[in-house]
């Protein structure tokens, strides 16, 4: 039990540390990769809490997602290398206050609520994967299908928004200059 508490605490501290680095560093790629390692630490916390499938899934998905975020940062940010020393924040005190209030309320609830009896044993990892699969395709089939349709809609929407629109006005301008 204490080993599990130790590992969860270590990975939790790693996740929080990398999360702080995300907003403290001025280099954009470092920021994106710090977020990646923060999410990996969260995935390792899942592994420490004996949910093997969810932990491996989190680690796998976040590596790819955050790397794509890294290239979008390089595309869109003014100073991707971070060597210019710009301050890219606004309403700093309000947001620090909001963050502290959010975390504080959650911590107070965590300490004061009566969580009831805490289960000591977790199911075996192979059994968990099997049971999750049965749950996914049995009782929660509607949720699974809805998630699939949502992902398809999001893919179509993102592609449609990102395609450059060639209107007659644009093409007329181009013909004039050529």
């Amino acid at each position, binding site marked *: *039990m204490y080993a599990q*508490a130790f590992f*969860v*605490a270590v990975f*939790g*501290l790693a*996740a*929080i540390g990398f*999360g702080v680095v*995300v907003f403290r560093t001025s280099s954009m790629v470092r*920021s994106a990769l710090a*977020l990646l390692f*923060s*999410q990996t630490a*969260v995935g390792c*916390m899942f592994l420490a*809490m004996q*949910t093997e499938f*969810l932990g491996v899934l*989190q680690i796998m*998905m976040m590596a790819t*997602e955050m790397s794509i*975020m890294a290239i*979008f*940062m390089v595309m*869109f*940010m003014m100073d991707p290398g971070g060597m210019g020393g710009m301050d*890219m*924040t*606004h*309403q700093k005190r309000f*947001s*620090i206050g*909001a*963050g502290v209030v*959010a*975390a*504080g309320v*959650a*911590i107070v609830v*965590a*300490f004061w609520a009566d*969580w009831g009896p*805490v*289960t000591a044993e*977790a199911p075996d990892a192979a059994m*968990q994967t099997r049971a999750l699969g049965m*749950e*996914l395709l049995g009782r*929660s089939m509607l949720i699974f299908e809805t*998630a699939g349709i*949502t*992902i398809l809609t*999001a*893919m179509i*929407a993102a592609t*449609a*928004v*990102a395609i*450059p629109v060639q209107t007659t006005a644009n093409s007329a301008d181009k013909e004039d200059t050529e």
Partner: protein
Amino acid sequence: MTLVLIVALVTGAILCGIGVYGALSQTNLVMIMMGVELILAGALVNLVAFWRFLHPESYSGQMFVLVVMTVMAVEMAVGFGVAIARFRAKGSVEMEEAGDLKG
């Protein structure tokens, strides 16, 4: 055993707090999205801790985790599509210069 539950819940709370700070204080759309990712990561930690320590017999907890992971991916995809469109129209994705979208 409640010790591990409390440790996990406190970690989730702090991650959520850092995410709220990031989402509110950054001026760039991509950085705001990183803040939102941190909030969702905090929520995921809480969900898994609740599943493992309070209700390991019912797998709806793990199902919820899968749904939140899906939402993270989907929100990132659509957000980046919007960022590309905005960048093409305006040349920057800074929120300070986005006042013309108001009203």
